[in-house]
């Protein structure tokens, strides 16, 4: 049995949902699992960290994220605990931290994995905008993987066994790349890359105000609101809402595309959604070829009706 590690990601102190996917993957691998968490107080997170062998709590006077000291700390943990594989979430943080870690530990990284075999250190990830899947084998001292959110079916741990808790000191690295300030988003938006459901609007929305009908439907579904590039370019929606090749890659259980034609550059950003629904008034729109369910009709009629219908049981 090999020793493997997980980087448990907190967002403003909140345990990210996708950590549960990492924990499921690690438990199912049958390896000796060490979960690393940077926090002052471990108690709130312990109920989540069941069925694994060790929790390594990183402590320090100031634990705010700074890339160099986080990467140095994890590199030291990998070396001390002789971890042969180490996983994190393919999130904004993961994308910043894991390549730095790859450079600082004797490690090689595969990002954005859909499936990982932690024992064999093999991973599958989408390439060419999801047109192909690539299978990689990592042959370095440590294999690093980041996992795309919403791809691993979460399982609760059956074992109630409490992990052993160990402590580790934050590395005092000097920051070459210094984060001086974090500006929070003013709107309380759902993170599209982690959302379980997304309602998206395209050019057909005609203006910014009309996005309100998508927000209403999204509120019923507890969904995030996305947009096509045409809608973002026309300033109906903000840039962080763009789904697609030059926007976000999302992976919800349910994606509802409203007035979106289904151009390849949009499709590559949402094609792995479990269920795609298209609402479009043009029966020839390419989106219908890619959707599981489609309704041909005016979105301004269909979307409010759908909201009312779903409200009955949600």
């Amino acid at each position, binding site marked *: 049995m090999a020793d493997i590690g997980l980087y448990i990601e907190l*967002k403003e102190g909140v345990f990210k949902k996708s950590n549960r996917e990492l924990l499921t993957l690690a438990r199912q691998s049958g390896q000796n699992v060490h979960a690393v968490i940077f926090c002052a107080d471990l108690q709130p997170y312990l109920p989540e960290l069941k069925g694994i062998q060790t929790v390594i709590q990183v402590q320090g006077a100031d634990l705010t994220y700074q890339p160099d000291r986080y990467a140095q700390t994890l590199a030291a943990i990998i070396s001390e605990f002789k971890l042969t594989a180490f996983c994190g979430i393919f999130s*904004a943080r993961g994308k910043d931290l894991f390549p730095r870690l790859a450079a600082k530990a004797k490690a090689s990284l595969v990002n954005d994995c859909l499936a990982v075999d932690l024992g064999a250190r093999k991973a599958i990830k989408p390439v060419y905008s999801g047109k192909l899947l690539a299978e990689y084998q990592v*042959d370095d001292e440590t294999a690093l993987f980041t996992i795309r959110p919403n791809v691993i079916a979460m399982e609760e741990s059956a074992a109630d066994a409490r992990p052993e808790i160990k402590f580790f000191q934050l590395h005092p690295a000097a920051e070459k790349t210094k984060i001086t300030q974090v*500006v929070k988003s003013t709107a309380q938006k759902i993170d599209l890359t982690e959302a379980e459901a997304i309602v998206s609007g395209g050019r057909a929305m005609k203006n910014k105000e009309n996005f309100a009908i998508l927000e209403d439907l999204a509120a019923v579904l507890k969904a995030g609101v996305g947009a096509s590039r045409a809608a973002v370019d026309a300033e109906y929606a903000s840039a962080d809402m763009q789904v697609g090749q030059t926007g976000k890659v999302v992976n919800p259980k349910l994606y509802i595309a409203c007035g979106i034609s289904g151009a390849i550059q949009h499709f590559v950003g949402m094609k792995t959604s479990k269920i795609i629904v298209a609402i479009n008034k043009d029966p020839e729109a390419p989106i219908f070829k890619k959707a599981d369910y489609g309704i041909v*009709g005016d979105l301004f009629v269909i979307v409010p009706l759908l909201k009312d219908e779903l409200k009955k049981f949600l």
Partner: protein
Amino acid sequence: MNIYVCLKQVPDTEASILVKGGNAINEAAIKWIVSPYDEYAIEEALKLKEKTPGATVTAVCLGPERVQNALRTALAMGADQAIHVESGVYLDDQNTARALAAAIKADPAFGVIFTGKQAIDNDSNQVHILLAESLDVPVATNVTVFAVDGQKVKVQREIDEGAKEMIEMSVPCVVAAAKGLNTPRYASMMGIMKAKKIEIKKITLNEIGIDESQNKIHLLKLSAPAEKPQGRIIPGEAADAVRELARLLREEAKVI
């Protein structure tokens, strides 16, 4: 300042990609482009050059012979020089980064290096950071605002849903561009003519001392993902269709 920009040549997004020999693609019918995020990198490099007296922009690309076209695009947009790191073999990201670093390090006076936040073929999302670490310089990724004042660089990068990090670093450094950083210019006719006359400097992997055998990541297999079966259009009047959709989502798809 000696400004650098690393760009990758990738298949056009409209291209259909077919597997050849298990772990390569059939390049025969592919139209090649500069990876879209690298276009933002080129534009930002050119903007910085325009603001900095005496500055030059050098474009760097690793790949086979065909990538010279991508370098020509950068030259036509306004880059002054180009370096082609010639490689016809699959290199993993660490070795790609080491090779790019070697080409750039040959100039001890390198300043800001612009890259894309990801190349849209492999979506590796890491070469820019590995490059910076290999050069032992700071790096920020997913950058949407860039400013430099003397040796001090300030950037803003997107994190989650509209949240941003403000970052300070010093030159030399690597800045990985995201959408929103700028609007890339088109090459002018004059630029295209001028680009044709510039000689592209060539470096071989051999000169740098890197080869395939040093790869720590191996590409075992490429395959086409399972096609989704064609979906179905729900017929009927709007109200009926919506009711049926809601039922299907609950009972068949079980997603709500």
